[in-house]
C-alpha cells in the first residue's frame, strides 16, 4: 500500500489506517530507532519507543487531516524527535553518557541548509542517494547500509567518500 493509499485509509478508517502504517513501516521505524538508541537502551525500550513513534504519528496524522502529504517523511521526523528526547533524558540521568555521544562524526566542511543538503543528496543519483540518506539523514552505519543493500561496508564507505567529494564540489560552485 503506497503512502497515498495509506493517507486515504487513515482519513477513512483511522484504526485500519494505523494498522497498515505499522505493517508497512515497522521495520523502517524500528531500524531508525535502533540506529539511534541501540548503544544506550535495551531492546524492550527500543520497542516501546517505536510504538510511541507510531502513536505520535497517528495523532499527527489526525491533526493534519487532508493536509498530510506523506507517511514516510513525518514518521522519520517523529522517530528522530522521540529518540532525541530519550537520549536527552538518559544523558540527564546518567552523567557517564555525554551529550556529544549523540553526534555523528564531523563533516564540518559541508555546511548548508538541511533542505539544500538534501537537494544535493538527491542529485547524486542511485544508489548514492539512498546510501547518503541512510548514512547522514537516518544515521545508519556503513555496516547496516551494506547489509541492507548487499554491499560490503568498504564499498559503502568508498561510495560515501566519492559522494562527499561531489557535495563539496557542488557547494563550492554554489558559493561562486
Amino acid at each position, binding site marked *: 500500500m503506497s503512502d497515498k493509499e495509506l493517507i486515504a485509509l487513515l482519513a477513512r478508517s483511522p484504526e485500519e489506517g494505523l494498522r497498515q502504517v505499522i505493517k508497512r513501516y515497522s521495520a523502517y521505524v524500528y531500524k531508525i530507532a535502533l540506529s539511534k538508541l541501540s548503544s544506550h537502551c535495551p531492546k524492550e525500550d527500543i520497542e516501546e519507543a517505536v*510504538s510511541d513513534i507510531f*502513536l505520535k504519528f497517528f495523532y499527527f496524522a489526525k491533526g493534519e487531516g487532508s493536509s498530510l502529504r506523506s507517511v514516510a517523511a513525518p514518521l522519520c521526523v517523529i522517530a*528522530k524527535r522521540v529518540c532525541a528526547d530519550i537520549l536527552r533524558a538518559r544523558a540527564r540521568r546518567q552523567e557517564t553518557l555525554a551529550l556529544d555521544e549523540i553526534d555523528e562524526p564531523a563533516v564540518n566542511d559541508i555546511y548548508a541548509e538541511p533542505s539544500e543538503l538534501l537537494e544535493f543528496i538527491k542529485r547524486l543519483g542511485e544508489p548514492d542517494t539512498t546510501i547518503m540518506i541512510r548514512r547522514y539523514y537516518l544515521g545508519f552505519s556503513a555496516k547496516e547500509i551494506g547489509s541492507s543493500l548487499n554491499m560490503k561496508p568498504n564499498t559503502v564507505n568508498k561510495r560515501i567518500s566519492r559522494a562527499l567529494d561531489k557535495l563539496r564540489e557542488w557547494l563550492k560552485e554554489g558559493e561562486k
Partner: protein
Amino acid sequence: MKITLDKLSQSAEMDSAQLISSELEKIADSESEGFELTDKLLSKTLRKAGFAMNETKRPIKSRKRVAFIAAIAAAAALSVTAGAVIARNNMMTKEEHQEKIVERYGEEGASKLDEKGFTSDNAAFSDHFKITEEVNASNGYNTLSLITLEPIDEVGEQFLENNPNVDFDAELINGAPKELESWGMGVSWLREDEKGRSYYLDFNRNTNDDKQIKISLFELDVPQDERPAERGELYGEIVIDAKPNSKGYDLKNANGDTLSVYDFIITLDKEISLDSPEVDEAIRNGEDITFTDEEQKAYNSEVVMTLTMKDGSVKELTRDMLAGRGGSREGLSYYYLNNILIDPEKIVSAELMGDIYK
C-alpha cells in the same frame, strides 16, 4: 539555519523531510522483508492507541491467582488513550451484580448481607471501566470489600481479554501519614465472566478511625520469561468506606483472652496459629512441607473452631473457611470468614484450637 552534514541526522524538520519522502518510502520497503517484530509492535501500538486487537494478542503465561500486599503509592495518571471508542451496550444489570454476591455467599448469605446493610451501590467510572463495590463490611480495623471490574467499552474489553492479571494499590485517604505505615491489603481473585471480574479484598489497619480507602486497579503484565511483572495502565479508582458497620460480640477464655466475633471476621487478642503442631514445628524449623492434593484437602477440612449458638446448634469452622491474616496489629490474630457470614449476637460460646471462650 545552516548545519554541517554530520548534523543532518539530527535534523527533524518536517519540510525538509518531505523533500526526500519518496526515497524514504523506498528505504522503508527495502527494510521490511523478514522483519519479525511487526506483530508485536502492532499489538503494542494499537493498545496504546486504544484500539482493539483482532489480529494479535499478547502472550499471557497463565491465569494466575492474584494475591498482593498493597503498596502505598500515588496513583498514576490515567493514560489509557481514548480512540474511536465504542461503548458496550450490555452493561451489567442490578441482578447481575447481585449474582456476584450470590456466587460468593450463596442465596442465603446474599440475603443476609442485604438485611444487615453490607451490600453497596458504590460505583466509579473511568474512561473504559466501571468499578462497583458489591459488598462492604468493616469493624473499623478490618474491612472487606467485594468489587467488580467491568469494561464499559471495547477498549476495556480488550484489555481484560488480552491480560487476565490485575494489580492493586490502596491508599488511606483523610488519614494521618503515620497511620499509613502499618496496614495492609489482601486481594484474592474470585470470579470472572464475560461481563467483568470480581475480587475479594480485605484491608487491615492499626486504627479504627472513620476513614475511606482509595483502591486503584492496574493492568499487570506478567512476562513469559523470568522478568518481573510490570504494572501497566491504570484501569480506574474507587473510594470505599472503612467505617465500622459490623458490631462485634466478645467472648473470653479462662485466661481473659478476648475472642471478638463479627459478621465477617473473628479476631483474637493474642497470636495463635490455626495450623497443626506438626506443621507449626516444620514452619519454625524452616522445613518444607509437602502435601498431596488429597492430604491438603483433608488438612483444610479439619475443624479448628466450633461456635455454639443460642438455639443449641453448633457451627463447625474448618481451616478453609477461615482466611488468616496478620501484620496490621501486632499480637492479634484475625480470621476472615470465607464465603460465609455468622450472626455474632446468636453465639453462646466458641472453641478455638481446644480453648473455650464464653
